[in-house]
């Protein structure tokens, strides 16, 4: 028990702190049309968008909860605040204009420093709104757009509406509907043809207040032969009450484009993290989802790539770490809608202290899509007898001319491995951390160096108190 406490304490000092920030505007708890009316009028939204939200709310009520995956029965949708705005002026482009306490939070999390050192632009969301949004001027001049969705819709209406809600429709699933009804904050990115954005753009999502649901929405369009790396991170204070985070992410990679989307999810362990992420990849385009899930009480997330035209390729790398009372139900989907498309899904899960890691994935090849290649590999590492790992792979292969491979592996940390490392001078905890970091190194290697270091530290933090 003491060890568990120390993990929480450690998370609390580093990420789980909260600031007493004044609320500028908030809806009451509860899920109903009135909340949407309030959000829409606060944001001065068009009738079109308001109707979109109302339609989504109807869809939310009509859809049943998923009857598979993690246990979601304890979510009380009427005990959640769906919109909380801590800002009188949003999306500042200078940290000086961000309210003191909010700025302090992001400074403690190292966001402005990272921005100065190695990013092309940053968006920082605090509860329901973006407190800061900035892209480097040279990129802005080249026509790269990086704004919040409100701005995207008002200023870049045509391109925004062309794709918004098309990749992940309202009716896709109950939580996509929920997000569509209440979405606020997130990113809208457009990269013009042939522009290669060298340094990543980053968004950081911070929940600060208790009982607030966060429903950010991200839409990224990378035009022909353009390239982008996008990174998102997230943390929250550790509250005794559960929180809900339900995002929708829509990606479009047009002909020849390359898009790499990196997630370092580190929610506190009272957050339900239920996210729909999907990409459309067109001719010869490549989409990579690099998705790490460390925190949260429950995660259900299966980043998907729909390969719409020949030559498209998908790479999905999903990492999950499930500790005590955590269920990480993660994986990926590769949908081959065109011939000569290629996909790879690698899933790695680590479970300890009774945590549960589940791989859930889909490979689908439509009839007539010849020359498809797909590889799926899911590896699980169990750190003790209490922990659990399952795999739920689905294959829907309608075309005979497809090369599909699937491998699964479950391993345990052996006494001999631990003794070997300990005899050389590592404590049991350090030895376990080394084995776990080695196990996920395939993932760490894909990260920019600064994030790889951060990720390794997070794993080590999670390993603390792993052994008594």
């Amino acid at each position, binding site marked *: 028990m003491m060890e568990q406490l120390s993990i929480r304490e450690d998370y609390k000092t580093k990420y789980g702190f909260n600031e007493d920030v004044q609320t500028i505007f908030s809806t009451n708890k509860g899920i109903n049309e009135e909340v949407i009316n309030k959000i829409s009028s606060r944001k001065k939204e068009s009738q079109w968008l308001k109707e979109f939200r109302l339609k989504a709310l109807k869809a939310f009520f009509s859809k049943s909860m998923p009857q598979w995956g993690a246990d979601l029965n304890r979510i009380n949708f009427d005990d959640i605040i769906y919109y909380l705005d801590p800002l009188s002026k949003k999306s500042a482009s200078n940290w000086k204009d961000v309210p003191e306490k909010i700025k302090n939070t992001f400074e403690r999390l190292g966001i402005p420093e990272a921005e100065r050192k190695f990013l092309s632009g940053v968006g920082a969301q605090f509860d329901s709104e973006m407190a800061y949004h900035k892209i480097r001027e040279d990129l802005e001049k080249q026509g790269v757009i990086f704004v919040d969705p409100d701005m995207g819709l008002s200023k870049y209406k045509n391109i925004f509406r062309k794709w918004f809600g098309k990749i992940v429709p309202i009716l896709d699933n109950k939580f996509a509907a929920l997000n569509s009804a209440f979405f606020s904050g997130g990113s809208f990115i457009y990269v013009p043809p042939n522009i290669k954005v060298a340094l990543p753009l980053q968004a950081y999502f911070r929940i600060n207040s208790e009982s607030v649901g966060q429903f950010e929405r991200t839409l990224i369009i990378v035009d022909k032969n353009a390239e982008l790396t996008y990174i998102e991170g997230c943390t929250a204070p550790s509250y005794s009450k559960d929180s809900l985070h339900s995002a929708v992410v829509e990606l479009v990679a047009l002909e020849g484009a390359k898009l790499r989307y990196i997630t370092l999810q580190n929610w506190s362990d009272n957050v339900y993290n239920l996210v729909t992420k999907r990409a459309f990849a067109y001719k010869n385009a490549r989409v990579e989802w690099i998705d790490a899930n460390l925190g949260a009480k429950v995660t259900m997330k299966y980043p998907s790539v729909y390969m719409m035209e020949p030559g498209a390729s998908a790479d999905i790398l999903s990492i999950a770490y499930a500790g005590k009372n955590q269920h990480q139900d993660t994986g990926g989907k590769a949908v081959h809608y065109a011939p000569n498309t290629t996909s790879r899904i690698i899933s790695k899960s680590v479970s300890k202290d009774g945590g549960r890691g589940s791989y859930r994935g889909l490979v689908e090849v439509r009839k007539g899509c010849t020359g498809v290649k797909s590889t799926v590999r899911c590896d699980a590492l169990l750190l003790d007898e209490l922990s659990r790992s399952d795999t739920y792979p689905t294959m829907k292969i309608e075309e005979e001319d497809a090369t599909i491979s699937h491998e699964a592996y479950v391993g345990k940390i052996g006494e001999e491995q631990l003794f070997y490392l300990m005899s050389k*001078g590592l404590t049991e905890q350090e030895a376990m951390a*080394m084995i776990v970091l080695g196990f996920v190194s395939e993932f760490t290697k894909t990260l920019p160096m600064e994030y790889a270091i951060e990720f390794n530290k997070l794993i080590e933090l999670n390993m603390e108190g792993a052994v008594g």
Partner: protein
Amino acid sequence: MTELLRIEDLHVEVEGKEILKGINLKINEGEIHALMGPNGVGKTSLGYVIAGHPKYKVTKGNLFFKEKNILELRPDERAKLGLFLAFQHPVEIQGVSLNHFLYTINKKISNKGLNFLEFRRSLLERANLIGITQEFLNRQLNVGFSGGEKKRAEVLQLLTVNPKLAVLDEVDSGTDIDSLKTLTAAITEVNKNGTGILLVTHYDRILQYLKPHYIHVLIDGRIEKTGSSELARELESKGYNWLKQEVYAQ
């Protein structure tokens, strides 16, 4: 002479079976001891017990390192005191480079505070001594290593942490004659600086290059004979059976 290791009447069980039945052994600074004997007599077990393997239960006796009873210490605590075990069968650790591993154990043991680049420079010098290339250092720890490569990697760890006492479990098996020469030359260097060596071996081949001060023959959980390097030659010509018969005749 400073005493490093003192083993007194050590009895050890593994999974309910007694495998060491009263071992007595003393190793001083700078000494080389060879522990010989046929297969399955407990040579490797003794190394594991010294290093603190949790599966090996000491039922009687004592184990002192530099006058301190270390029986209650964890393996990592023993390593930090200056004990080192080169494994006969090193364990594979996926995704961890040899390079990173050496940097980590160097930090844990010698605590010299070298940064990674400084460390790497000095590491490359040591690695070259025993024929380890930069590419080899980037490989995953023991993963897919040949028998000889495993031994070289263990000896490189020895050179890196520079322990007070090293138990080297069959560093000679699986190595060709050239590797054996370079490995024993490196071990000799470490020994010259005062490191005590307990060399566990099956054959006397290695003893042509590494001259032990004492040879102990372990049979059926007991050290039945201790002698000088002469003993090794006698064993080689007469075989272990000769000693066994002598033991059982008593």
